[in-house]
């Protein structure tokens, strides 16, 4: 059973908001004493996913949650947008595919950087990516 200890909701409307999201994520990770590798990982994944919400989804929101599963502390972040959605999910998760002439490594890379990763998307109505990083002891 996952319990949510605190939530932070940030909107992603411009490039500055991406920085605000990842800075908040880093602050929480540091405050909760995540190790430096885990902190870098979740911060970088946040940067990727927030940028996807902005660039591919037009705009979006990030819901940052401080969670616990009874024995571990974690950070769970939901990135949600109401953009065009993703047609071929396996293809974007394989990596190296992009519709924006960028690197096409954001989704596949983020998936490797976190402990839990879920991508839900409906073409025409939006995309929701949920990631969780647990603190190691």
């Amino acid at each position: 059973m996952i319990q949510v200890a605190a939530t932070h909701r940030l909107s992603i409307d411009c490039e500055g908001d991406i920085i605000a999201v990842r800075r908040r994520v880093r602050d929480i990770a540091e405050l909760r004493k995540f190790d430096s590798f885990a902190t870098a990982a979740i911060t970088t994944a946040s940067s990727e996913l927030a940028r996807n919400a902005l660039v591919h989804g037009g705009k979006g929101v990030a819901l940052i949650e401080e969670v616990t599963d009874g024995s571990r502390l974690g950070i769970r972040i939901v990135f949600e947008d109401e953009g065009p959605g993703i047609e071929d999910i396996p293809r974007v998760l394989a990596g190296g595919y992009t519709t924006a002439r960028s690197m096409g490594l954001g989704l596949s890379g983020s998936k490797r950087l976190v402990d839990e990763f879920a991508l839900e998307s409906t073409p025409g109505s939006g995309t929701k990516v949920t990631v969780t990083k647990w603190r190691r002891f």
Partner: protein
Amino acid sequence: MDHRKYMTILKLDEAAIASRRAFFAVSDEDLARLASLRPLAEKIIDAIVEDFYALLLSHPDTRKFFADEATIRRVKRTQREYFMGLFAGRCDLAYVEDRLRVGAMHERIGLAPTWYLGAYRQYLELIRQHFDAQLTEQGAARDGFLSVQRLVFFDVALAIDTYIAANLEALGRHQAAVRELSTPVIRVHDRVLLLPLVGTVDSHRAQQIMESVLTHVVEAQARCIIIDIAGVPVVDTRVADHLLKTAAAVRLLGAQVVLTGITAQVARTMVQLGLDVSSMHTVSRLSEGIELALGMIGKAITAKSK
């Protein structure tokens, strides 16, 4: 900053002032009432100003703004002008300009809004006491006080806006200064350049970095440019993309990029992202990067022989 500048920044023209006045309920009737209270104001001003400064001087955080007797005399005089301004019976452009001057002055001396607002509470209480004692006619003290309160809230809003505008202005100035400093290309040696990157690499800055790097490489006929990313907080795929594109352009000019300042955390993250930076020379420490770069131009750092 000159208080007139705030008039422009805060877009305080006739229309804006009318809108504020309407919202703060500062009516012509209030202004007329305040004007009619002017004789009373003159009567109580000495007591109010004295009591007001007694409070400010009794608190350690506000006392420090009054260094000496001369300062106290000066601010008391300003205070008298401010107080009488409340009973001038007008609330127009000139009035607003005058109020902004007060706000700007407080901001300049570094008086935090906390003390400013706290002092206002005391100020209102003193006015209320004097009105209650002197305006004996039924409801007169209350009506007079409400008019003062409306105008004081109007003034407070102006002061707070001034504080915020001043801070935003300072922030803008700092950002511009940082931007100018943000791509300092240093000549380490003949034909070897160094660019230490510090801070967030946004799109605007990435553009600037690329242009600055290429210009310097051509000017210095550099063979190698070291880009140190120790000060970049997050290296995501976009930062990597910019670095790779910069490196590709540098190679077209016949030079090489050496990437340094890669921390263990960043290295791990880059690998997990699946980034391939094999087109750049990468080393962890800047000192190693310098050695590598010097090697490219056939130079080396050696120990001095005895």
